[in-house]
């Protein structure tokens, strides 16, 4: 079969991963807003799709670089297997209505490739990534608590009419959702297309006005579009799980959750912030694809804590937490299996 055709077949795994991300993670941005009926699903889906694509295209390279240093997949067959394994894992967990981490899924799958190909896994990079799995929900909870108190005091002092407050809240949810979608695209496009960067089938394109579209940018754009399709076709199912099942959120709390979780993702994706801090000799947040699901759950917990830790659905929390533990493990196992099948049954090169 023609090499170009084969390349695009392999790329389909990444597109499927993008679709899974859209179906699962995008629900974390607007799930609370749609769940509290402040924003219609269609409005949320359109905003999410546009801004995820923009975030992926404009700011997606930082986190991708870190993922590449965890495991530099050097054959497109290997990229296909890794991406497909992660995507399948996400789909499996999404089917159970659990908000899972595509970041954890892809990391588990990449480690699977490292094991299969005999490449050592950089422990420091893995530690850096794994530590963010712990710090992300904690940081999101802290942001949520701070935002909660600022907004609570602000509302009490301002005496805004309830009807007007809801109008501003709706607008704030849309803006926060756009920011969240951009952060998701910037931070998580690495999970979708990061494994294909070294083996991209695209050539740099020269645009009519003289600009250049690099192969990485083309990959990210394609990934962004795949995410958009996922948002429209499957995210509504997961939207109702987040926010409603762990802790009952008011529309204002929904805004706080989105802002807190989006701020965390932005911190771990912003190359501008990273360069600003490092050039001044200050500690910087590593550019790592982090889990928006974890950030949202952390933010929701933060709200729960700020309100006195009453009414938190610990059973659902435990169920979600177990999903986070199972995800990288399941993804690693599926990755090993699929690499074996691809190499030995389909006779494809999965590593050099």
């Amino acid at each position, binding site marked *: 079969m023609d090499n170009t055709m084969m390349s695009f077949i392999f790329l389909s795994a990444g597109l499927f991963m993008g679709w899974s991300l859209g179906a699962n993670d995008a629900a974390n941005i607007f799930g609370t807003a749609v769940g509290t009926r402040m924003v219609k699903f269609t409005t949320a889906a359109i905003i999410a799709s546009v801004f995820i694509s923009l975030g992926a295209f404009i700011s997606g390279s930082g986190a991708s670089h870190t993922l590449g240093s965890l495991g530099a997949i050097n054959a497109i067959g290997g990229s296909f297997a890794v991406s497909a394994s992660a995507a399948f894992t996400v789909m499996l967990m999404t089917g159970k209505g659990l908000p899972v981490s595509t970041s954890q899924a892809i990391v588990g799958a990449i480690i699977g490739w490292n094991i299969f190909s005999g490449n050592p896994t950089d422990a420091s990079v893995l530690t850096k990534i794994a530590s963010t799995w712990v710090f992300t929900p904690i940081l999101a909870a802290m942001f949520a608590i701070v935002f909660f108190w600022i907004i609570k005091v602000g509302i009490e002092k301002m005496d805004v009419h*309830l009807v007007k407050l809801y109008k501003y809240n709706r607008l704030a949810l849309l803006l926060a959702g756009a920011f969240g979608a951009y952060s998701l695209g910037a931070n998580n496009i690495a999970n979708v297309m990061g494994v294909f960067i070294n083996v991209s089938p695209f050539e740099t394109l020269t645009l009519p006005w003289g600009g250049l579209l690099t192969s990485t940018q083309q990959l990210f754009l394609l990934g962004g579009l795949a995410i958009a399709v996922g948002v429209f076709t499957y995210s509504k199912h997961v939207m109702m799980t987040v926010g409603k099942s762990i802790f009952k959120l008011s529309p204002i709390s929904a805004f706080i959750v989105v802002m807190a979780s989006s701020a965390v993702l932005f911190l771990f994706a912003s190359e501008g912030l990273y360069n600003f801090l490092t050039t001044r000799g200050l500690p910087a947040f590593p550019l790592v694809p982090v889990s928006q699901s974890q950030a949202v759950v952390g933010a929701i917990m933060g709200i729960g804590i700020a309100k006195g830790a009453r009414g938190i659905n610990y059973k659902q929390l435990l169920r979600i937490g177990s999903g986070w533990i199972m995800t990288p493990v399941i993804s690693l196992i599926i990755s090993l299996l699929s690499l074996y099948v691809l190499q030995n049954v389909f006779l494809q090169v999965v590593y050099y």
Partner: protein
Amino acid sequence: MQKLFHDYNKDLEHEIELYISSLHKAALTFYEGMKDYLFENEERFHERVHHTNEMEREADQHLKNLKFLLYKYNLIPDLSADILELMDALDDVADVSKAVMLDLELEKPEILEAYRQDFKEIAKRSLRCTEALLTGVRVFFTQIKAIEEHVEKVYFYEKEVDRMEYQLKKKIFENASLDLAQKMHLKEFVKRTAALSNISEDVALKLAVFKFKRGI
């Protein structure tokens, strides 16, 4: 195109304010109407009856409008059920004001001069009770922390009305010159005059509960 950018939130805010205002006007007219009846200003009394009817109709229309806005545009999704319950309960203020005026016009109870001041005071306290409630409802939409103060005022005035109601009934039934039918008729009107304060207390109880649901 104009409808796409129309601010329905502003319309709802406006309708809520107009509704509360029409209820307040109905309660005020009730009190003035009571005074006119007690002090035999017949022409003015009939005007007040007519005006109370108008205020009740106006209140009903504003209630219909705000219900429509709340449901059709889903402006306050999580609190709309509570707000509608509150607004529906408040409608009794206009209904009772109108009903008492109509009953006075129809039944023409003979209120002795000795009791006129008492009736007036009961009507005045009932009005104050309702005013405290309506202020509390306005505050529910803006300064949630200040609701308690107004709810307490409602309870205070309602207790005052209960006390005055009892004393007036006692005075009436101790009057040997009145026959039983007259006493029963007057007793009924004492009860109706005090009705606004009882309604206000019932609604204030709901307000006190809804206050907790308004947090972020």
